[in-house]
């Protein structure tokens, strides 16, 4: 199996051909926003930023920025700063740009100080972005094996179909990609609680198994420290309305999305896999956070597998729009009712499993074909909309 990808340095292939604008201090959010509104083919990552956060969290933010720029879907990056040497060292513009440059792709630093003012920075950014976009358009897609593909998944709005249809169908598609030499990343640390021992037993490296169990313990201890029943936080009211009774039930349904292959690596937040195959990454389940975090870990296609039984009955809003920054966010469901009520948003339905028309394996094969088509350039429905939801990096806190 092959897909059409944009060739990049260091033997990588992109599913998209974006020019990324990074406001590495949040005071440049306004400039990044204006430049990307003006120039076709650009995208940006507007967050609440670095101010008042610990060095660990500032480093996580830097990792997110660098990872999005190094994602094969990014052709070139413009890093916006206030001034060279300004602010916290972790998100200092030259440092960010130097790390991005190790991927061998074009990167440019522009600062307010050197441009001679914020509005001059916007002008310079527009000029540079238009040049990069024109250059990017000269790159031609090539047919390459799917072993060059990394996909990331999150599940959400889980209901009783998630663990029977949606997640198993995705898991089957994941197995197919990995059998073909590709890579897949799943996450949502809170939703391995109750299923962590099954996952640890699938880790090929005992150190990864130990780290995965430690992540589950840390998350459960943090939940207990709140003094609240985790059921009042997760599962969400929508999950409970749709039939899920406990976190353990949600977790056991959720891990079906990880298929059946061995786990080759357990990754810290927003870190890239070092080898191919199935990986788990520490991450926050929020759909405003995880898709871009998976993209920062190198996923060229991200997939949101939703149950959706509790959604409003006609053309409901999706829980995330374009939150992967440089990667398509494909919406899939295993609930035929969700597919019927949200045809403008759902890209793929494995609902025929519930109605008995498809086996999980048939659904997995169809989904795999769809993912490869999206990697080759087919737009997902969200990509036809010029809007992105707010983005929340997975910070550890506290804030000061």
């Amino acid at each position, binding site marked *: 199996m092959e897909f059409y990808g944009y060739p990049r340095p260091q033997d990588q292939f992109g599913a998209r051909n974006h020019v990324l604008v990074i406001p590495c201090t949040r005071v440049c959010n306004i400039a990044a926003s204006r430049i990307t509104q003006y120039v076709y083919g650009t995208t940006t990552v507007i967050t609440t930023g670095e101010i008042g956060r610990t060095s660990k969290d500032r480093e996580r933010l830097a990792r997110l920025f660098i990872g999005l720029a190094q994602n094969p879907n990014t052709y070139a990056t413009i890093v916006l700063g206030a001034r060279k040497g300004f602010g916290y060292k972790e998100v200092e513009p030259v440092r960010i740009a130097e790390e991005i440059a190790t991927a061998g792709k074009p990167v440019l630093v522009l600062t307010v100080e050197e441009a001679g003012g914020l509005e001059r920075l916007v002008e310079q950014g527009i000029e540079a972005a238009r040049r990069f976009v024109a250059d990017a358009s000269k790159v031609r897609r090539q047919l390459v094996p799917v072993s060059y593909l990394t996909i990331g998944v999150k599940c959400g709005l889980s209901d009783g179909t998630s663990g029977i249809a949606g997640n198993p169908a995705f898991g089957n598609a994941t197995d197919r990609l990995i059998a073909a030499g590709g890579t897949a990343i799943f996450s949502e640390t*809170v939703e391995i609680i*109750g299923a962590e021992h099954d996952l640890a037993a699938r880790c090929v490296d005992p150190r990864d198994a130990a780290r995965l169990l430690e992540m589950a313990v840390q998350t459960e201890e943090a939940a*207990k*420290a*709140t*003094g609240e029943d*985790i059921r009042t936080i997760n599962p969400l009211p929508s999950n409970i309305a749709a039939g899920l009774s406990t976190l353990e039930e949600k977790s056991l349904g959720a891990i079906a999305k990880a298929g059946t292959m061995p786990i080759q690596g357990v990754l810290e937040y927003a870190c890239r896999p070092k080898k191919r195959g199935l990986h788990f990454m520490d991450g926050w389940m929020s759909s405003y956070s995880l898709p871009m975090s998976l993209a920062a870990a190198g996923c060229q296609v991200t997939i949101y597998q939703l149950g959706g039984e509790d959604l409003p009955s006609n053309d409901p809003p999706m829980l995330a729009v374009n939150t992967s920054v440089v990667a398509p966010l494909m919406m899939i469901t295993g609930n035929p009712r969700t597919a019927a009520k949200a045809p403008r948003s759902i890209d793929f339905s494995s609902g025929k499993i519930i109605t008995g028309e498809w086996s999980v394996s048939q659904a997995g094969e169809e989904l795999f074909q769809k993912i490869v088509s999206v990697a080759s350039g087919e737009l997902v429905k969200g990509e036809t909309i010029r809007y992105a939801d707010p983005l929340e990096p997975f910070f550890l806190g506290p804030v000061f």
Partner: protein
Amino acid sequence: MAFQALKLHNDDNVAPMVVEGEQGAIITVQTPEGSLPLALVSRVPYCHKAALRPIEAGEIIVKYGKPIGRATTAIPAGAHVHVTNTEGMRGRGDLAKGGGN
């Protein structure tokens, strides 16, 4: 449709519905080893779980062949199994030292 609920693993004592389950209906449950009839003693909505046999208070609720929680009351066969009669056992900050409020 040939079945209305799915028993996912031999050890399971609950099965999720794939249609709306009306109180009093006799439904067909597809299991790993063929199908079984089950009389619903309460309404069990689409995607929600029905008890496959009587479950005692304190007994472990099993789905996917794994524990998903504990019964807080006795649950008759064919009844709706959900938050009113089932509690989670993980991440229970409310039961931890200093929990509550």
